Each structure stands twice: as structure tokens, then as C-alpha cells.
């Protein structure tokens, strides 16, 4: 039984048919990546899992429980966190307050909360240096770190990451991917949406290729990066 499973999911924005019956599974402990070009429906997939969009057809299951009918704040409670596209840091809250919001469902007086914070600051020492700074004044890279740290503060079992490398300098991209591997090494299941297909496939176990709302390829990461069509369309190789 897969930890997270989408079965024949159709999601619409009004009349726009954004997901045309996709099926995705994520097993415990995996990094699964979802690659595809602009407008393919990657973000929509993550938004549907988190409950921000409701599928018109199909099912989303987490630990074999249907979650496509429950509101986003309940889904977080079950153990699915998302670092959304564009980071979406609370701009007028400080770094610490942003992290506190991640821990909204938990008791901030408990030692577990402190341990969670320590873990985030160990992964992202930069955030600790910026602890009282307003989220809106952070650099892009710092905001990405905060978005991931904030998601980790919810104590998730599955972490959904929407284009964590977007707009970052190559060094920083490298660093973010390393951190994703580290988190995964600590036992976190990750569903990673990326346009940066090369690096995503390098750290992922399996991958899906999404095109105009449909899954066109699904394989282990190694095979995908060797696939001719993937190389042409997403890896910039001729």
C-alpha cells in the first residue's frame, strides 16, 4: 500500500481542465519527482493533494484514507506539508513567527517544538541568523529555506515541494537539493515538483513526466534521465 496515492484525478479551474485523470503513487521513504514544462499541471497536482483544489473526479488517498473531501487544514493535521510555489512566506511576520505558524497545530511550550526548531536551524543556519527579520525582507534563497523549514515545523510524513530551486543561483540550487536529500535520509518522504529535471532526477528514486495535465511517462529516476524524449524535452539535450 502506497503512503500517498492519486487515482485518476481530474481537477478543473472553472472550465479549464488542468488535470486529466492522473495517477501517482508515493511510497514511504521515497523521493518522487514530478517534472514537466510550464502549465503542465505540476502545481495543480500538489494543490489538489493539499486540498486547496478539489478534484472533480478521482481520489486522493493518504495511508489508504480518502483525503480529497477534507479541507486543507485537516490534511496538514494528517501529516502532509507543502512548501508552495513562490514560497509564500508571511511577509509581515518574522522568521520565527513564520516557523511558529508552521507549528500552529503543536504546543509551542513542548520540548518537541524546541527540537523541531533546532532541526530547522541545523538544516538552515541562515534562518537562525535572520530569526527576528520580517519574512518579506529575506532574499529569495532565504525565503525558500524558510518555506521548507516552515513546512517541516508541521511535523509531516510527506513533504510536498513546489519548485524549490526556482530563481536561485546555481550554488544555492545545489545546496537546496543537498538538503532535500538530507531530509529524505532522515526518513522523510518527498514529492518534488521541478523544472530543473536534471537535478531532480539525480536525487529522486522515481519520477513522473506530466504534459498538459496527463502523465506521459513514469519510471525509476535513472531510466527517466536516460529516456530519449525526456532528454530532448526536459534536459535540453539534442
Amino acid at each position, binding site marked *: 500500500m502506497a503512503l500517498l496515492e492519486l487515482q485518476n484525478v481530474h481537477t478543473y479551474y472553472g472550465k479549464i481542465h488542468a488535470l486529466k485523470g492522473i495517477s501517482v503513487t508515493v511510497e514511504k521513504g521515497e523521493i518522487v519527482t514530478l517534472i514537466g514544462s510550464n502549465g503542465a499541471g505540476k502545481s495543480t497536482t500538489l494543490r489538489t493533494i493539499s486540498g486547496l483544489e478539489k478534484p472533480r473526479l478521482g481520489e486522493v488517498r493518504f495511508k489508504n484514507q480518502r483525503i480529497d473531501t477534507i479541507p*486543507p487544514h485537516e490534511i*496538514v493535521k494528517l501529516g502532509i506539508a507543502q512548501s508552495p510555489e513562490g514560497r509564500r512566506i508571511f511577509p509581515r511576520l518574522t522568521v520565527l513567527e513564520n516557523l511558529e505558524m508552521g507549528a500552529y497545530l503543536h504546543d509551542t511550550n513542548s520540548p518537541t517544538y524546541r527540537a523541531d526548531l533546532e532541526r530547522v536551524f541545523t538544516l538552515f543556519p541562515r534562518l537562525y541568523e535572520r530569526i527576528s527579520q520580517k519574512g518579506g525582507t529575506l532574499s529569495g534563497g532565504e525565503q525558500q529555506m524558510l518555506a521548507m523549514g516552515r513546512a517541516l515545523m508541521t511535523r509531516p510524513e510527506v513533504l510536498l515541494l513546489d519548485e524549490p530551486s526556482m530563481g536561485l543561483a546555481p550554488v544555492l540550487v545545489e545546496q537546496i537539493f543537498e538538503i532535500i536529500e538530507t531530509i529524505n535520509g532522515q526518513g522523510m518522504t518527498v514529492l518534488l515538483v521541478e523544472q530543473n529535471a536534471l537535478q531532480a532526477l539525480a536525487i529522486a528514486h522515481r519520477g513522473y513526466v506530466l504534459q498538459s495535465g496527463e502523465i506521459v511517462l513514469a519510471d525509476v529516476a535513472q531510466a527517466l534521465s536516460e529516456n530519449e524524449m525526456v532528454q530532448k524535452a526536459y534536459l535540453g539535450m539534442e
Partner: protein
Amino acid sequence: MAAEVNAPASARFGRRSPLEVLRTVFGPVFQLFLFIVGSALALSLIVVLLALMQMGSRPDILTRALTILPQVIIDGLVRGFLFATIALGYTMVYGVLEFINFAHGEIFMVGGIVGAAIGLMLFTSGMLAGVPVLLFVAIVVLAGMVVSGSLAVAVERVAYRPLRGSPRLVPLISAIGVSLVLQDVVRLIVTNTPMGFNARYHTPDFGSPIRLFEIDLGERVVPVIVSPKALVFISVALLMLIGLNYLVNATRLGKAIRATAQDRPTASLMGINVNRIISLTFLIGGALGGAAGALFGLNVGAVNPYMGFIPGLKAFTAAVLGGIGNITGAMVGGVVLGFLEAFVSSYLSLFTNGALSGAAYADIAAFSILILILIFRPSGLLGEATTQKV
């Protein structure tokens, strides 16, 4: 690397120190205090200058202007805190939903009616005289808060929530509808009870006015007095403002309100029940409005179903003046507008030698400010610059 980070980290990121809490709570209150002192001084200075300019033709004008000055400042404070407490309801709802709740003036009115109803019940049962003044104030304020707060929550649930996601004009029109419905339902109720349309606000005896100090003018002595009711109004309003700042800045729920205001979908990704936070916002705003209504009625001695309209509009002006969506701004906008009104209504006839009646022009002054602000500085006095936008 990690080890270096850990040691100081655990020392710092635990609970906020009491000092920090005090700073986050009293920072905005201090800012408010500065604006109170600042606007009182600035307006007093203008009065003195105007008086000096007219000294040639009217030698006694400076003395006349100065003798009423302390009274005008007290009046300005009462008006200012009235507008500030109502303005908070507009601004909080706007901060979270970007929607102007035009029915908020009626939420305020209901608080006044509730206070008057309690006064009448105590009066008819003959118990009124025996109720200690502060207990009476506590009862009407709490009752006003409970009724108006719940009413605001119910209004949101019934008239605004189903319209969420529709074009902005739609909930606005719904709010105007709610406002009319509330006025007429309350009118129906009060005219069919012993309260009557213009309901008298019975209170226990608040005692005689308090003499603060006296101004010795040589030939006569002018006392500066404050009515106990005005004093109660100012104190309760100040307590509520401090409480609100504590709630919004120093509690988990307050941070959730701010997070929801800043980014609703992302707040839900944190596990925040956004609908509940929106209800909470209406509850807080409604409760503040209800308390203001109960205190306002108590202060002026009578209430009616249409009394929410003008104070509501003025409080909205105050919210815009301070920068709508900004909590400190609403408080600051309230007191600045209150002072302006008090000064215009007291001094206009003095300086025009009775040609223009100040009381009549105070409203014009208030709404001219609304128009000027909307034209020249739509982000308000504090606007984007401050940190305390919800």
C-alpha cells in the same frame, strides 16, 4: 556548524521574554499616545495662532480660546476613542478579507440598544439605583460585546461567507442590505417595547462631574471638569485597545489572524482553520463595536436604531485615515479625527464670530478629510510604512 548553532539557539528561541511581549503590546499603544499628544499640541498651537491674529479686533479672544481648550481636548479624547474602537472593526475585517463591512455601524448601534435595554430593565425593576456604577458599566459593556460580537459572526456566516469568491461589489452590496435590515429590525423591536424609538439610556447615578484643576484668570476662576461617564469611556476604551494589541501581537491566535490576513491559502497549509479565524475576526471587531455602542449610549443618554450610521461612517473615515487594514492606524486615525472634530466644533464659531456654527461643520470637516485622504494619500497616515498591518 550545527553544534555552534544549537547552543545559543535554544537559549533564544524558546518563549518570548516578558519584556519583548511588553514591547510588542505597548509599542502600538505608545505610538497612539504620541499621536494623541501630537495632535492635541498641533491643534492647540493653531488655535493660539488664530487667536493672536484676531487679537487686534477682539482683545479677549485669546483668553476665551484658552479657557475652553482643556475641555475641548477631553471632548476630543472621548470622540477619538469612540472612533478608534469602532474603526478597529472595519480595519480588522478589511485586513483579513479586503472587504468593507458597511454593516459595522449597525453592530455598534446594537451594542447601544443592548445597554439601554439593560438600563431600562434594571430601572423598571427598581434595582438600578442599587447597582454600583462600575458593575453597571461592566454589565452593559460585556452584554454589548457578547450580543454585537455574536451578531457580527452570524452576519458573516449568513450574508458574506456564501458570497466569498464572487466579485468585490457583491458582498459590499450585501453589507449595505444587512445594514438596512438591522436598522429596521431593531426599530421594529424597540418601537414595540417600552423602550420606544428614542430610547432613554437609564444609568445609576455616576456622581457629579470631577474637577480636574482650575484655571485662574484673575477676575474669575474657570474649572476644568470631566464627566465621570467620559472618564469611564476613555478608560474602558484604552483597556480594550491594550487587550486587542496583546491578542493580535502576542498570542498564537493573533499570529494566526495576521497570517490569514497576509496569505489565506498558505495559512490553511499551516493547519489554520481559515473560516474559524475569519469568524474570530468578526467576533473581535463586533465585540469592540458593541462595547463602543454601549459606552456611547451611556455617555449621550439616549439611543435609537439609526444612531450607528454617522459614527460608523466617521470610524470608517478614521480607519482610512490611519491606513485601512492597519490596527495601529485605526487607533491613530480615530484619535486624530476625534481631536479635529472637537476642535472644529468648539472653535469654528469662536473664530468666525458666530457666523459658522461649529457643531454643524464638524461633520463636514470629518468627511472632507475622508475625501482628501482618498485623493492624496489612499494608504493613510501610517499606510504601508508601519509594521502592524494585520
